[in-house]
């Protein structure tokens, strides 16, 4: 049923004559198994590293503490940070401005006695802003331009500073200015003659880092390494590949592990280790999924799997040697006394063994991780892995179900906290179905949709599986209920403008004029759609009548709109040709609801499902309760077929029923499905009126057999040749009609009509 993911927009082409598609989207949910769940560092830490191979937060904090030390302990660090890092020069020039009016550090600086501090901040801000402007794409440098001239003046001011209070800070500004113009010699001179004699602090460390860079550029690698090590500038050490030759006794051969070893030996608790570890384990995670996917596709097109040829065989490059070394290194790291992150290394080992398919070893290391020293952040990640591995191991036992209930409560809290942490974050209203931006939502989807639900289904617990799938797919819309919808002007005859609008999800579902991209494309829907109608009905009943605390918990946190659920159940019954039950369920769906569906918006409900051939002349004017009316009519015809004694009427009922049935697996596919995969198959373009297009649909195949049988029976049962001829006419069987019923009114009608029909009349006059 994977095709369901691709159906709605494609199917638009069927009725509307083709050619209209959305510029972007619709977006399809990822396979939950593809979600990468290993997490040893925060996205913020990762970003800081990617931005400049530094951990700015650490530098910021230390620098602010230093300012606090030389000013006043009563000034909060946050106030210092605001002035030093966030304020512009214009704010500093007007310290009483509203943005700094309540800032204690600004107040300190306003005091005439603290002019020296203020002056330095002014100079630093001006240098920063000029350099910022010089990086602006609009800036065009020429010798003697204002920016260069002013920087020269500022450089002189920095050089002329004779005080001691800000000596290192002015030196930092000078070093930056020298470095920016590649004057490495001046950087080194300044260091050797002056800064190296200052007491070490975060500012001199920052200077050391620049000077290390200057040495490196002038070819003095050893001195560069010395200064980078002193300033803990791991990024620069890495760029020099310092581990080459240094770790001569290394037991590792892979460069990446050697690098980890180098960092670990010098900075065993560096945040960089967590960043590197996350990258490597996630790469492995991604490989495992992609390899499985490649295997499922019969080893065709290894797009996302690195491969190489060995003789005639295409081998997936699993980098086994690297991961074996990584595991060896992680084991060593997890045993070292200097390490305060043993939990992280054990967590990584657990994950890597789990990815190798060794669940027991994975659980064993997880157990160690749970009992090792770790930051609260890593402890939460360990808990998430516990949730995953328990689900992998679980059977459908009562013990597991009660644990699941506890875990769900914990997971739900995590999801809720994520939302609270970032209430203004874009992901609150962007496309949450596909963007893996909320870690705990990812965990829910990966574990519940990828492991728990399929297992429950396999164990026969269909109802709970559907309930859990609904929770995992839809909870996020309750927690972050805003959605940024894009209005395509061409979609809406009343409003031709295109625009973005942020609206509550509930409103989006109920009154948005464009398409609903979510409710029929998520894994919950896929799950329920792949169930049989009775299972879906059972689930629908459970929503109304919860039998356990777990039911209540899940129902409260899922999308349980009865219109939505009952429409699906009714449709599944129609797919199974059970029109009686379909009528029961569809009669509970509000008339409004169907008009909100994408198919209604696209005009599909204009087609008369009992027409043999469709044309605009026979569009139906009242499409209210379209699905219900169809189900009722089919149920009525079913009864007639089984009970009517008059043969001609019975035959007519059979033909009408057969046409309706054929159309419900043809042009009117939306009566039995929520999409149709139109496209090329075996070199032929299949539309929805083509049986070949339903080749893989077992419900359709069963229906087609019934259609053929009913048609055959009906034709043979007619005793009234006029009625038989009329039936043939409606089914466009002109040749048969003219041959078998030449003296009927229908045959006469053909003779008076267009040339094509007239040919038949000549032939069989």
């Amino acid at each position: 049923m994977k095709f369901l993911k691709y159906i709605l927009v494609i199917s638009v082409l069927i009725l509307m004559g083709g050619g209209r598609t959305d510029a972007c989207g619709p977006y399809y949910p990822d396979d939950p198994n593809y979600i990468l769940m290993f997490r040893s560092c925060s996205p913020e830490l990762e970003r800081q590293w990617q931005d400049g191979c530094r951990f700015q937060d650490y530098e910021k904090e230390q620098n602010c503490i230093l300012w606090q030390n030389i000013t006043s302990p009563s000034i909060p660090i946050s106030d210092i940070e605001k002035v030093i890092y966030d304020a512009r020069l214009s704010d500093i020039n007007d310290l009483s401005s509203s943005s700094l009016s309540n800032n204690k550090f600004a107040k300190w600086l306003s005091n005439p006695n603290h002019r020296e501090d203020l002056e330095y901040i002014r100079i630093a801000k001006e240098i920063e802003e000029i350099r910022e402007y010089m990086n602006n794409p609009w800036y065009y440098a020429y010798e003697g331009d204002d920016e260069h001239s002013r920087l020269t003046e500022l450089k002189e001011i920095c050089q002329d500073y004779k005080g001691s209070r800000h000596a290192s800070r002015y030196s930092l500004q000078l070093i930056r200015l020298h470095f920016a113009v590649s004057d490495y010699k001046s950087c080194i001179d300044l260091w050797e003659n002056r800064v190296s004699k200052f007491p070490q602090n975060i500012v001199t460390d920052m200077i050391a880092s620049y000077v290390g860079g200057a040495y490196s550029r002038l070819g003095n690698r050893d001195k560069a390494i010395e200064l980078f090590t002193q300033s803990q500038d791991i990024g620069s050490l890495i760029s020099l590949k310092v581990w080459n030759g240094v770790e001569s006794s290394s037991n590792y051969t892979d460069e990446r592990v050697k690098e980890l070893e180098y960092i670990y030996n010098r900075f065993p608790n560096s945040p960089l280790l967590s960043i590197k570890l996350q990258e490597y384990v996630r790469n492995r995670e991604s490989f495992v999924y992609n390899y499985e996917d490649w295997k499922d596709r019969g080893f065709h097109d290894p797009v996302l799997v690195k491969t190489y040829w060995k003789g005639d065989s295409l081998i997936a490059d699993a980098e086994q040697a690297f991961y074996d070394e990584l595991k060896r290194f992680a084991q060593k790291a997890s045993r070292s006394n200097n390490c305060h992150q043993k939990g992280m290394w054990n967590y990584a080992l657990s994950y890597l063994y789990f990815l190798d398919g060794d669940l027991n070893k994975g659980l064993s290391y997880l157990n160690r991780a749970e009992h090792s020293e770790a930051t609260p952040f890593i402890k939460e990640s360990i808990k998430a892995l516990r949730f995953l591995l328990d689900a992998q191991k679980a059977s459908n036992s009562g013990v597991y179900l009660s644990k699941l209930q506890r875990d769900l409560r914990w997971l739900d809290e995590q999801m809720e906290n994520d939302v609270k942490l970032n209430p203004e974050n874009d992901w609150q209203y962007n496309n949450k179905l596909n963007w893996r931006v909320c870690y705990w939502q990812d965990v829910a989807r990966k574990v519940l949709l990828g492991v728990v639900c399929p297992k429950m289904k396999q164990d026969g617990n269909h109802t709970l599986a559907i309930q859990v799938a609904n929770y995992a797919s839809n909870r996020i819309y309750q927690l972050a209920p805003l959605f940024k919808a894009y209005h395509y002007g061409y979609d809406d005859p009343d409003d031709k403008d295109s625009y973005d609008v942020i609206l509550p999800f509930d409103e989006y579902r109920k009154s948005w004029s464009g398409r609903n991209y979510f409710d029929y494309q998520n894994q919950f829907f896929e799950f329920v759609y792949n169930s049989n109608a009775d299972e879906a009905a059972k689930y629908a009943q459970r929503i109304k009548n919860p039998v356990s605390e777990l039911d209540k918990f899940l129902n409260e946190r899922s999308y349980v709109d009865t219109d939505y659920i009952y429409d699906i159940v009714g449709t599944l019954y129609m797919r199974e040709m059970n029109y009686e039950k379909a009528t029961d369920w569809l009669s509970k769906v509000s008339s409004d609801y169907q008009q909100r569906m994408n198919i209604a918006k696209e005009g599909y409900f204009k087609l008369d499902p009992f027409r043999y051939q469709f044309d605009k002349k026979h569009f139906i004017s009242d499409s209210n309760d379209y699905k219900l009316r169809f189900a009722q009519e089919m149920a009525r015809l079913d009864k007639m077929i089984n009970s009517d004694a008059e043969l001609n009427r019975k035959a007519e009922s059979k033909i009408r029923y057969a046409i309706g049935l054929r159309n419900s697996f043809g042009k009117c596919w939306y009566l039995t499905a929520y999409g149709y995969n139109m496209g090329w198959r075996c070199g032929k373009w299949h539309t929805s009126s083509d049986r070949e297009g339903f080749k893989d649909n077992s419900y359709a195949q069963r229906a087609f057999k019934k259609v053929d049988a009913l048609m055959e029976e009906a034709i043979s049962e007619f005793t009234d040749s006029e009625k038989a001829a009329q039936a043939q006419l409606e089914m466009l069987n002109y040749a048969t009609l003219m041959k078998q019923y030449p003296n009927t009114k229908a045959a006469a009608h053909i003779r008076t009509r267009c040339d094509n029909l007239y040919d038949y009349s000549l032939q069989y006059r």
Partner: protein
Amino acid sequence: MKKYYLIICLLISIALLSCTASTTLESDKENSIYYWRTTFSLSDKEKEFLKDHNVKTIYMRFFDVDWAYPAKNGEDVTPEATIRFNDTVPDGIDVVPTVYITTSAMEKMQTKEAEYAEKIYKRVSAICKKNNINIKEIQLDCDWTKGTRQPFFRLCEAMKEYMDSTQTLSSTIRLHQLTQTPPPVDKGVLMVYNTGNLMEMTSDNSIFSRKDIEPYLRDTRLANYPLALDVAYPTYGWSVVFHPGEEKYYFYKISRRTDFSNYPNLTKIASNLYEATSDVDFSEDGTGSDKVYKNYRIRVERPSSKEILEIKKLIDGQLKGKQHNNILYHLDESQLSHYSDNEISKIYSRN
């Protein structure tokens, strides 16, 4: 008989007199040309061209202004493809810095026109200072339409704020813009090229087509246009390659090559249209890097001097009595080699 000779002689004399009276000799006047490349470097032939045709002004594209997505350093409207000077401008030639502004950039500049006017002016000045160019005139080139007209006009007004009274602000004027109020600039240059739809196979010539231009010259809108105009004519060409689709041909690419006479697998199916009867590889090394495939079509577009002069005659007719210069687009040896000196002189000539 003598009487007839006399009449004929008289007529010839009148004709000659009228010619010398109304046509300035090309060698006597100062001409202009556009320079539209990203590196300023002149070949010997180009230098010769400037000298031979007494070109004293080069309208030089300094940079484009385009919408940047994602934003660069917080700027979502940025200068792009800034010119690099590998050569100095020959003595005695004035450079008119020309800035091409895309319509998407213009849309983004709305309400911030003054800010961008400053940015543009500052950048143009910086480029001029670095390259010893004296700014007498700045030209803005934008295909503004009704939606972007007001922001563009506001930008022009704001630009003037930065320019001194000796400096001129000019703007290109496209044919379709003739129907609207002119921008608030000191003068305009009517662009008589890129008149058709490049992407459409049905266009007969997207660079210069009488069919596309004539409708704008039928009435008196050019004659009555309330802004002093010079006129720019195309002296370049290219070919446009189309690939077949189910119902129509679709744009594939532009090629600099315009001579296809030596390719037997290209059948000429119209005066400027070829169709490939099998794959044709134009790449010199035979790697297939420049290839068209079977059934592809190539439309050759290079306006002939005859076509240009016909249109020029119509335009000159409308601008009669209004002093105006003719400008060539653009300085490129390989393109100009398709026109003789005499043809260039005729295009430059003022009537």
